[in-house]
């Protein structure tokens, strides 16, 4: 009975737990890039839509409704398993470029044939209140902040907007800007960024350094245009406490964390988003006629390199405009009212940065004018109409009309073939041979062959070959020199060793006669005397000088007389003497060694 009840309880628990396992929970949240909950997002600034799926067994991405119109960037996925239960957090880095109220969600996930939905989340997207560093009242906690700014917000189509971004970081902090990931708005034409400009600024009694880049934008169409936030990547030294504020994305200190300080300074890579910029672009007011540009202009002039030429010769007609506008896009394709007898060709156009007025630049358009008939001709005044962004009205600038005197000539009219050739000074007629390339080759190496080469290490080995005999010869000469230099000293140093070695050799051979010569050689080497002239008296003198007692000297004399007799005696007589003689000899050598 008990067993049956227990069985039913176990089955019931299994069923209940399996039901529990199949219960998937889906939650949708909107957060800022540093993980905080978000109720209001800023226009053009990234935030995160997080879908948390609990108790799931599938890693299939959920479908999130309501993200149409959102700009979706990176997506991420984090899996966590605790006590056998898996939770997955899916993150979507998104951005909205237009203000409004949006409904994000629901997030739908399908698992084992069932559909699980999250709640919808209401999100308000509004313009961000930009913290103007000059007007901040409350003390700033941040060590870095990243600002995107422009000089105008309300502009017309084509009007120049000067933009800049600044990366601020606290002075005396080891923070380094690693890079900036720019964003783009397709309705804006942007120039190349110039920088980096460095500077210092005091904000609320705190000294900040900044790095700045500048560029210009020109809106291409009317409407509300958002330049999304830029992202700055920077490195910051690792701190053990969480002293670094969570206003930026944090990569984490990693496994070694606190131990990293033992291995020297280590850095974390972090990032921070700037604010976005929104421009209110109005269309240009109605105008009957061609509008050449939008901006401010100082002068519009035309000139020629010479007022008189021969028929068929080329005259350079230059139009120069000075202004602050989108010069790169500015074009002057047509000369209005050119007489039929004057033919003109595009030559070149270039921008000059040498304007006297600040912010203004000059652009020149050069044309080659060729008179087909002789006579007096006039290039009429040219007009340039633009929308003055300061006075908010259309204005027209005019050049002077230019008179030309064309003389009858015999030269044939030329047709310019290359702009490059006309850049050369004095070049009036192109050298047509320059267009001709050198003809093909009909023989030679038309197929490729493997290039022979000596491998690098073998090459080095070959280079060492001549060094070997040199090295050997050099080594030998050095050894010889050392020997020559130190030989007497070595002989003296090793005299006792040599004597003992000779004695042991003599003992083996029973060569008693050699004992005497060994001692003579010992004294000669040790005291640097010649073997042929050293006498017993010299030896006794040395012994006396070295402090040998009279008894020792007498014993020595007895020993010497004994060994000297070996030299002259016959072999049979020598054998009669005791073999202790060698031991005695060794005894005397060691004694001398101690005393000397």
């Amino acid at each position: 009975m008990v067993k049956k009840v227990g069985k039913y309880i176990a089955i019931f628990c299994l069923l209940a737990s399996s039901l529990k396992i199949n219960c998937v929970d889906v939650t949708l949240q909107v957060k800022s890039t540093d993980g905080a909950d978000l109720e209001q997002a800023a226009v053009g600034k990234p935030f995160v839509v997080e879908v948390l799926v609990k108790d799931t067994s599938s890693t299939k991405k959920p479908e999130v409704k309501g993200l149409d119109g959102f700009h979706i960037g990176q997506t991420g996925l984090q899996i966590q398993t605790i006590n056998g239960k898996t939770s997955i957090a899916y993150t979507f880095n998104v951005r909205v470029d237009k203000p409004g109220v949006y409904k994000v969600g629901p997030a739908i996930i399908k698992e084992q044939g069932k559909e699980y939905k999250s709640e919808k989340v209401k999100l308000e997207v509004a313009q961000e209140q930009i913290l103007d560093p000059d007007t901040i009242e409350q003390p700033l906690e941040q060590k870095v902040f990243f600002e995107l700014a422009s000089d105008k917000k309300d502009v017309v189509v084509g009007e120049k907007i000067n933009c800049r971004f600044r990366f601020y970081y606290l002075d005396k902090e080891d923070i380094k800007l690693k890079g900036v990931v720019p964003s783009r708005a397709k309705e804006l034409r942007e120039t190349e960024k110039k920088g980096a400009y460095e500077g210092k600024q005091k904000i609320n009694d705190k000294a900040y350094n900044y790095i700045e880049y500048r560029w210009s934008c020109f809106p291409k169409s009317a409407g509300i245009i958002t330049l999304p936030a830029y992202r700055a990547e920077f490195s910051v030294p690792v701190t053990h406490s969480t002293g670094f504020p969570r206003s930026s994305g944090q990569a984490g200190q990693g496994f070694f964390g606190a131990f990293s300080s033992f291995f020297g300074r280590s850095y974390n890579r972090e990032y921070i988003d700037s604010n976005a910029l929104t421009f209110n672009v109005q269309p240009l007011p109605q105008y009957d006629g061609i509008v050449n540009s939008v901006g401010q202009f100082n002068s519009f002039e035309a000139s020629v390199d010479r007022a008189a030429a021969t028929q068929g010769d080329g005259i350079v007609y230059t139009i120069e405009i000075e202004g602050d506008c989108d010069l790169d896009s500015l074009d002057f394709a047509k000369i209005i009212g050119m007489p039929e007898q004057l033919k003109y060709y595009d030559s070149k156009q270039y921008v000059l940065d040498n304007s006297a007025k600040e912010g203004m630049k000059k652009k020149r358009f050069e044309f080659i004018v060729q008179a087909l008939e002789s006579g007096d001709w006039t290039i009429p005044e040219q007009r340039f109409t633009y929308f003055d962004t300061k006075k908010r009205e259309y204005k027209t600038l005019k050049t002077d009309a230019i008179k030309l005197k064309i003389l009858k000539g015999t030269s044939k009219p030329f047709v310019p073939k290359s702009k490059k050739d006309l850049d050369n000074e004095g070049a009036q007629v192109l050298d047509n041979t320059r267009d001709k390339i050198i003809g093909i080759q009909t023989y030679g190496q038309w197929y490729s062959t493997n290039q022979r080469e000596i491998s690098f290490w073998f090459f080095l080995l070959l280079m060492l070959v001549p060094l070997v005999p040199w090295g050997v010869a050099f080594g030998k000469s050095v050894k010889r020199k050392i020997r020559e230099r130190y030989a007497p000293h070595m002989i003296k140093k090793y005299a006792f060793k040599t004597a003992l070695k000779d004695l042991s050799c003599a003992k083996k051979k029973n060569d008693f006669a050699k004992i005497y010569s060994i001692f003579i050689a010992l004294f000669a080497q040790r005291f640097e005397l010649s073997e042929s002239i050293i006498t017993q008296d010299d030896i006794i003198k040395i012994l006396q000088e070295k402090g040998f007692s009279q008894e020792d000297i007498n014993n020595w004399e007895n020993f010497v007389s004994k060994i000297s007799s070996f030299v002259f005696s016959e072999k049979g007589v020598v054998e009669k003497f005791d073999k202790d003689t060698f031991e005695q000899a060794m005894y005397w050598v060691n004694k001398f060694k101690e005393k000397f």
Partner: protein
Amino acid sequence: MYKKIILFFIIFLGITCVASKQEEMFLTANNLYKNKEYKKALDLYKKIEKPGPVTYYNMGNCEYNMGNYVSAIVAWSRAKKGSSWSKRQDINYNIIIAHDKLGSSYEVTFWQEIKEFVCSYSLFFWQVLFLLFWFLFFAFLMFLKKEQNLRMLWLFLALSGGFIFAGTLLIKYQSIQYKIAIVIQAGSLFAGPNEKYHQIGNLSVADEVIVQKSDKNWYKIDRNGVVGWVNANQVEVI
């Protein structure tokens, strides 16, 4: 035994047949070029299995006459490998004309002339020359030991020669180590291997750049001292 001989003969014949077929293609392409059928000539040149400098040169000419100046520059740049110095000068002349057509300039500086001269000979040639000089140098040193007169002069000459040969060898090694690429599509130079990185410069068509390394579909290049990343589709590696 006889079977082996016959087999060897067949293989030899096969190889010569293939080789002669390739040569036939080359000669036919030359004739097509002379008849101004540039497209057909180019297609035939491209079919040659292992094209050498002459084939690349002729391909460049075909591209030029078809108005593809950038492709012509690429083909001519490839033709420089294995070409003699005089032929390299002809190639440079053609490249200058192609650049004129594109509205850009191409200058051959004195230093480039030296590099061209060095690269016109094979690495093996310079290695052998250097080793020869190296052995002679040590032989000279033996001679100098005995001859006291003019010792300094001989030593100076020997060392100068050593520097020159070592220098040419270094230039040749460097030319092999670094790849050259030609920009075929104007675009931007980025700070990293992704378009999201900061733009640090612009590249014009037909610019010559040095490729330092590659990362997936991006190349790290050096253009006149400015180092940055460019999309691989925008350059053609020589």
